[in-house]
């Protein structure tokens, strides 16, 4: 009987253990525009994890020959880009892939990535579940204060 109760306790969390893909939320994905001889690009996004500890362990995309997980380290002004095996997604936390930091690296683009276009990126998680997302292509730059484009940054606007 004791064993059975123990078993029930151990099993209790099981039903909430859905696929990692089902508990990961993705916000503001974007890929950097790549034009004219640029054969590499990167995709960025905000990842929320509503479940237990997880990780992205691979990624793929039909627009790139190879997709890797990378990070950038700013070592006293020297930018060092490195491949990493996984992007950790701790339980109940948000992880942001952003320019100058963690990114999904798109290598060997088989087409130009133009602003306004959308590309498909598939993320593979630590439990081998997958999630495919539509990623809009954007021009990535610091916003201008007067901002002719869509990039209106409040903090920047107020200093003027």
């Amino acid at each position: 009987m004791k064993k059975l109760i123990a078993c029930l306790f151990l099993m209790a969390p099981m039903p909430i253990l859905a696929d990692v893909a089902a508990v990961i939320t993705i916000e503001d994905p974007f890929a950097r525009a790549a034009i004219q001889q640029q054969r590499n690009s990167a995709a960025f996004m905000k990842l929320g994890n509503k479940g237990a500890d997880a990780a992205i362990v691979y990624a793929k995309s039909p627009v790139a020959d190879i997709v890797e997980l990378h990070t950038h380290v700013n070592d006293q002004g020297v930018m060092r880009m490195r491949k990493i095996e996984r992007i950790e997604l701790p339980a109940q936390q948000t992880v942001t892939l952003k320019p100058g930091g963690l990114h999904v690296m798109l290598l060997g683009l088989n087409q130009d990535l133009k602003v306004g276009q959308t590309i498909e990126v598939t993320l593979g998680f630590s439990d081998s579940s997958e999630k495919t997302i539509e990623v809009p292509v954007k021009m990535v730059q610091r916003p201008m204060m007067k901002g002719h484009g869509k990039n209106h940054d409040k903090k920047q606007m107020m200093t003027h």
Partner: protein
Amino acid sequence: MKKYNHLYFWIVVICFFGGILLAQQFLKQQGSDLIPGAGGNFTLQADQGPVALSDFKGKVVALYFGYMSCPDICPTSLWNLSAAMNSLTREQAEQVQGLFISVDPERDSPYALNLFVKGFFDSFLGLTGLKSEIDKIARQYGVIYEKVPLPDSAMGYVIDHTSVIYLIDQQGVLQYYLPHNTDPESIKNDLLKLLEE
């Protein structure tokens, strides 16, 4: 004779303090990160043939060191610079020359570089050369770059590098050092300061 000794003494004193004042002025202008005496002329290969910094006497030059396989750091810097250029009047923009020096001559040909930089701004030029030439210019400008093999990556190797936009005045003298991710508005303001001089 005594009179002359006095004269020499005062000349020395005036030169000494005058020198200090000038040096202070000079350093103030440059900002804290700029190595005094950094910069200087160079010649490299563009798709159109050899290009020297001195070819642009009379113009302001915005200089950046990077490489084309860089997915993020270099394009961001070039977009920031092109946004600043686009916010100038056409007359002002014509007085500014953007130069991109590739520190990856193995992968980046002058031909490819030319197409690459023109994707950011029409008048930008892409330059590269022998590693020994690039090394010398990097030392002149205080650029740190290093080829690092990444055997586990399809990239094969990456080039770690500093990400700085250098602004050079109409006389070819290095004036501003803009650290990575300086926003276009600040770049524009520094360009205008040099254009108005």
